[in-house]
């Protein structure tokens, strides 16, 4: 979502502008096969950082593949994690 830190924020042809490419990537993640709205994509200079929690390992792999494809030429760092499906170890008391 945030692209602060991008070195491509201004100037250059729009098609090469990282800000817009990230915006288009997020459109594709949301409207495509993945329906993914929970991944944060942030520019870090000439690299891109992915954060968030996704439902499964295949989803995570598909997101990373899509990002590499959409942002060819940029380094991609993925900190995506897969949702935990374990039982809780305690309950919260609401008195």
């Amino acid at each position, binding site marked *: 979502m945030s692209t602060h830190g991008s070195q491509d924020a201004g100037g250059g042809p729009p098609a090469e502008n990282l800000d817009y490419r990230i915006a288009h990537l997020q459109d594709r993640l949301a409207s495509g096969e993945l329906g993914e709205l929970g991944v944060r994509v942030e520019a870090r200079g000439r690299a891109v950082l992915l954060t968030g929690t996704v439902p*499964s390992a295949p989803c995570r792999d598909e997101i990373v593949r899509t990002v590499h494809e959409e942002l060819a030429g940029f380094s991609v760092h993925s900190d995506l994690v897969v949702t935990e499906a*374990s039982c809780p170890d305690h309950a919260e008391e609401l008195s």
Partner: protein
Amino acid sequence: MIRVAAVGDIHMGPDSQGVLRPAFETLPECADLLLLAGDLTRHGTPEEMRVVAREVQDLAVPVVAVLGNHDHHDDRPDEVTAILRDAGVHVLEGQATVVESGGARIGVAGTKGFGGGFVGRCAGEFGEPVMKEFVQHSRRCADGLRAALEQVAREGCDARIALTHYSPVPDTLAGEPLEIYPFLGSYLLAEAIDTAGADLAVHGHAHAGTEHGMTSGGVRVRNVAQPVIGRAFHVYHLPAREPAAAGAVAQQAR
């Protein structure tokens, strides 16, 4: 004591069948019911919702759900609702249900809810038709929730719970970018909850938010989006209410 298990945003698809079932099968040991706070699927397709239905079918505790925005994406909310209902799930939209479990009567009022934002930083019903429709949809959801909570109040339940997908308060959005708060919830939901009364409000939708919040009227709010709680579900223990006045109308879910 009422034991409420809840989770939202499980975003199931064909590759996730069976992921949650082992944890859900432990529910009778720790909970009296399971609440599903919307975004049960990725695109709202019948195929995906059948995965969810199989995941919760024949659990030994009642299951109550609302849909989320993802569950509407395929424009077939009635069809996916029917799939869940066929699996025995109580699916609510501006409706209430009373489930009896663990010796208690637990009233749940539910709506998907919608965005619009929070007091002082919210959309108004003004200007272009699409803007007015945005706010009107949020208002209709909140009105439905209030009516459903009022119905629950008349039934003299041991606990009253508001179940939504969108958030009623900004507290539980902490961690999300401030700029998108108006797409994550609406104060209209909190106003409905505070007006009609509830012992707990549960929602999802905000994956990067936080679990704990409270309405300005003092109702505890919990964001149970699975990425937030980091578990298959969380459990909340509520003290049972004093019984309501005699003669309370017993009216089942409409």
